């Protein structure tokens, strides 16, 4: 008796369906690594350094200890958890003269902590801009006209001073 030949051909039509499913999955979950930019303007180098006292209500002192912690006016915050500098920026902005944010850091403070702090300052400034826009004009900052934006931006002005503290 002759054996019947078995057909070993595989149906490849399903491949396309499976690939489509996988393709859609990866298209949905894909995020491309984006590079962000933090801009900074340095003051020109001068030989004669100005010294003078800055009013206490105009200055916000921040200390970075190199362990992802930041000391804000006597209170320690972990940089990995949410914290806010909005009230502090509002406090220094209330002064008629522009405020001063002084970032004190140790020589071995990692760059990551420094970038996180600058980012936090930038974010909190944006939150404060929105708050003031809502309080005075009843709108979000982004929806204001350019002249109104300028008025609000003028109210939140501060300079960042960086200071490297020698390690103990």
């Amino acid at each position, binding site marked *: 008796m002759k054996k019947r030949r078995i057909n070993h051909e595989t149906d*490849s039509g399903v*491949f*396309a369906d499976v*690939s*489509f499913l*996988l*393709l859609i999955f*990866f*298209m949905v*979950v*894909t*995020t*491309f*690594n*984006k*590079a*962000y*930019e*933090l*801009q*900074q*303007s*340095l*003051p*020109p*180098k001068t030989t004669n350094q100005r010294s003078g006292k800055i009013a206490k209500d105009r200055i916000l002192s921040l200390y*970075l200890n190199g362990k*992802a912690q930041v000391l804000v006016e006597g209170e320690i915050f972990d*940089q*990995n*958890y*949410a914290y806010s500098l909005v009230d502090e920026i509002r406090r220094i902005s209330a002064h008629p003269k522009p405020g001063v944010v002084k970032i004190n*850091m*140790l*020589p*071995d*403070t*990692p*760059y*990551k902590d*420094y*970038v*996180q702090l*600058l*980012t936090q300052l*930038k*974010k909190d400034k*944006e*939150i404060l801009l929105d708050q003031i826009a809502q309080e005075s004009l009843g709108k979000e900052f982004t929806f204001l006209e350019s002249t109104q934006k300028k008025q609000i931006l003028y109210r939140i002005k501060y300079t960042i001073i*960086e200071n*490297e503290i020698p390690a103990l």
Partner: protein
Amino acid sequence: MNIPRKPKKPIKINTTALPDIIFMLLFFFMVTTTMQNQNMSDLELPAAFNVQAKSKAGPNDLEIFISSSVQNNLKVNTHIGKVEDSKQLIALELNQMKKNSIFVHRAFMYIDENIKMSSVNKIKEELQSLNILKISYIHNYESES
């Protein structure tokens, strides 16, 4: 005159190439996919020597890379050396640019996350003394709210 009508032929599209295209797209997305991470503690800064593709710098800009993974950890445009030799490296690059009538406006800094701030501050001081006062830190942490 009775013209004989041509019989209608069904239009067939050859779909044989379709799975190949899909596979190609699939592999592309499989390779480029990074799963989104919402944890603030996992701030990832670019590995300093592998970020040329993301470069935002123009022809008048200086690109400074500081890496923590190689011995010669400083790269100023094309010149490679150590952070301790930053003064010479920056001067070398600026001289070369000056010869080509290029005057630097801005410095783009690509720095590994665990680099100590003393190294960063040293380079900032060098830039300040050379009157390059605009600095841009390039990082991966989402800062736009």
